[in-house]
């Protein structure tokens, strides 16, 4: 035991003496959390619109004003030049062109019928469907207001109550995801690179010929990074509560418990990578790039897991971040208790055991 402690102390010195690296390790999560927490949103806002009419009249101007006044759209230009329709889409100046037919206002007033065409840049199919829908809604509302409510008493008004996030703040959606992503990537990178680095430098050899059991040397390597990760976790949580204003609705203890478990899983993953990788370059590639893409895309951080094809949903099961993010959402945003996340907790615990077992088995006590 005393031996283990002195080894752990040695590892601490290793890390804390390298001030630059430490600053980097502690600084990265902070900056990224703030940046992503504020910047990321899947909402469609400020979509650029070009409005075209052979001649603008009162009705068409009113509609364009309404579009402009909504948060969804920014009208960049009202044009009477028909060439601009194609051009603005092609050049990317606008994502949506609203085309009014000739004599739009007159037709509307006299015949009670008028046509308007929405031409959307559908390269981004999701956004296109969404903002086209918004534009349709705004125009339909205009039409409804023209009729006046007195004429049509048979109205069903849908009232919307957004559960858990009534103001639809983007940070609520992204904080759990960013938390899950940053922790797993940093943890896996730290451990895997640190161990492989010792292999490359040859100092690992010295450790291995010592009378220490391999499990102890692994433990002593992981411990300082565990501490470092806890500091990171604390700083991220503080930021999200006080800067991004995402409250922890549920129990803080449960959140901490599952986060520590997750940190452990991530470190174990890094350990496993270090037993496979031969060079620092390979270790970094596997832990940073190889892990980054699946974690971003398959964890449900950005794209909901339920809308993926079944085979991908199955693959996503092995990604620890997926379970952690789900648990954080339940605890932090929905305010549910431990009973709601026991499944996620069990899965993460199982992952931790498997990862540790495999890496100890893989950990060669001799370097070839």
């Amino acid at each position, binding site marked *: 035991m005393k031996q283990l402690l002195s080894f752990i102390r040695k590892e601490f010195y290793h890390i804390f003496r390298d001030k*630059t*690296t430490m600053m*980097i*390790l502690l600084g*990265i999560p902070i900056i990224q959390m703030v*940046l992503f927490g*504020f*910047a*990321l949103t*899947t*909402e*469609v806002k400020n*979509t*650029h619109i070009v409005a075209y009419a052979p001649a603008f009249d009162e009705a068409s101007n009113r509609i364009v004003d309404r579009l402009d006044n909504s948060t969804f759209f920014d009208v960049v230009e009202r044009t009477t030049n028909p060439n601009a329709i194609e051009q603005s*889409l092609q*050049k*990317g100046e606008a994502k949506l062109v609203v085309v009014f037919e000739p004599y739009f206002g007159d037709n509307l*007033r006299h015949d009670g*019928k*008028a*046509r*308007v*065409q*929405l*031409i*959307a*840049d*559908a*390269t*981004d*199919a*999701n956004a296109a469907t969404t903002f*086209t829908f918004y534009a349709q809604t705004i125009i*339909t509302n205009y039409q409804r207001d023209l009729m006046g409510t007195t*004429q*049509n*008493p*048979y*109205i*069903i008004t*849908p*009232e*919307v*109550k957004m559960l*858990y*996030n009534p103001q639809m703040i*983007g940070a*609520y*959606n992204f904080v759990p995801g960013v938390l899950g992503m940053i922790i797993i990537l940093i943890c896996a*990178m730290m451990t895997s*690179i640190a161990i492989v680095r010792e292999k490359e430098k040859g100092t690992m050899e010295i450790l291995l010929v010592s009378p220490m059991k391999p499990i102890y040397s692994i433990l002593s390597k992981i411990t300082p990074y565990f501490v470092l990760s806890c500091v990171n976790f604390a700083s991220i949580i503080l930021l999200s509560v006080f800067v991004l204003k995402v409250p922890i609705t549920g129990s803080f203890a449960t959140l901490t418990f599952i986060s520590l478990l997750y940190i452990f899983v991530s470190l174990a993953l890094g350990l496993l990578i270090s037993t496979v990788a031969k060079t620092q370059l*390979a270790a*970094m*590639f596997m832990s940073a790039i190889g892990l*980054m*893409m699946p974690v971003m895309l*398959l964890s449900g951080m*950005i*794209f*909901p897991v339920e809308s993926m094809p079944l085979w991908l949903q199955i693959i996503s099961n092995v990604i620890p971040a997926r379970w952690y993010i789900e648990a954080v959402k339940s605890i932090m945003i929905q305010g549910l208790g431990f009973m709601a996340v026991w499944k996620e907790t069990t899965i993460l615990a199982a992952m931790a055991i498997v990862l540790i077992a495999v890496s100890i088995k893989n950990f060669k006590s001799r370097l070839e």
Partner: protein
Amino acid sequence: MLAYLLRKEFKQLFRNSFIPKMLFGFPLMVLLVLPWAASYDINNMNLSIVDHDHSTYSRQLTEKILSSGYFRLTNNATSFKEALKSIEQKESDLILEIPPHFEKDLITGQGTKLMIAPNAVNGMKAGIGMTYLSRIIGDFNAEIVNELVPANRSQTAMPRIQIDSQFKFNPRLNYRVYMVPALIVLILTLICGFLPGVSIVLEKEIGTMEQINVSPVNKALFLLAKLIPFWVIGFVILTFGEFIAWAVYGLVPAGHYYTIYLFATIYIITVSGLGLIISNYAQTMQQAMFIVFFFMLIFIMLSGLYTPIESMPDWAQWIAAFNPLKHFMVVMRSVFLKGSGLADLTKEIWALLGFAVFFNSWAIFSYRKVDK
């Protein structure tokens, strides 16, 4: 001289058994798997209905919603509380509450209210669910009005605006064709940014840097020799990515290949230059990797790859304007889907050229032959 240096660089790269594997394995994995993950397509949202009315209208409305194909009924809850429970257990995504006297209020012309409560933990999904649902309710409402209002009156009194929507460039609204070109950019960035990011530090760590430093090789030439291999690698990856896009997704650029390669030429120099700068400043591989990782993640998240840039706050849009990844992504997406040519992309070409010159002069400037 350059030829010798190049030979050295290529040997260094390919002796590492890991690199050739990665060059093909990584793009293959990313392009085959990930486009399928990137989807907001939501066809089966789980809906919990709380019907307090149990009338003909409320049943008609329920049927209309369920037959739309967007929603699947999880349960008919008796109270809002019960429905909320099913949301907590992740069984349903949204709740529709139909109030008592729904039908009566409607027929007597008092107007009535419905409540839609989506689980907004996932904002995107909540938004889509809400819009689908309110659209169906709107249609239902229109049907009711037609039923209740005498036909002649409704036609004269109601001005109608007919709205036609047209989706250009991607009429089938396939989200994958939007992701694939962007993912190619991503792969290119990760490989051509990460590898140079560590290449000089690597030489520092293994000690071969000293040898270069005492040789008569000049700074710019040395860095050029570092850049050219990544260029070659980048082109190989780009071509391989285009091949997969065609073979798997049937996606060929609507524009010209030469536009893509022209931009790629500038772009690869830009990201590699950025990598070299980091490599110059970092003292150890570990540092270099973390710094590269730091920048890469920011570049990726603020590139518009997943979330639209227009929706970001102004300061984040400013950061995005200085993000080379964003510009190249716009280029690839426009060339692939819109068939844009150089004339449409003048802004991007100047931006990328600017970055390329700036980063690489900085790289040359920051490379010192003498350690201080």
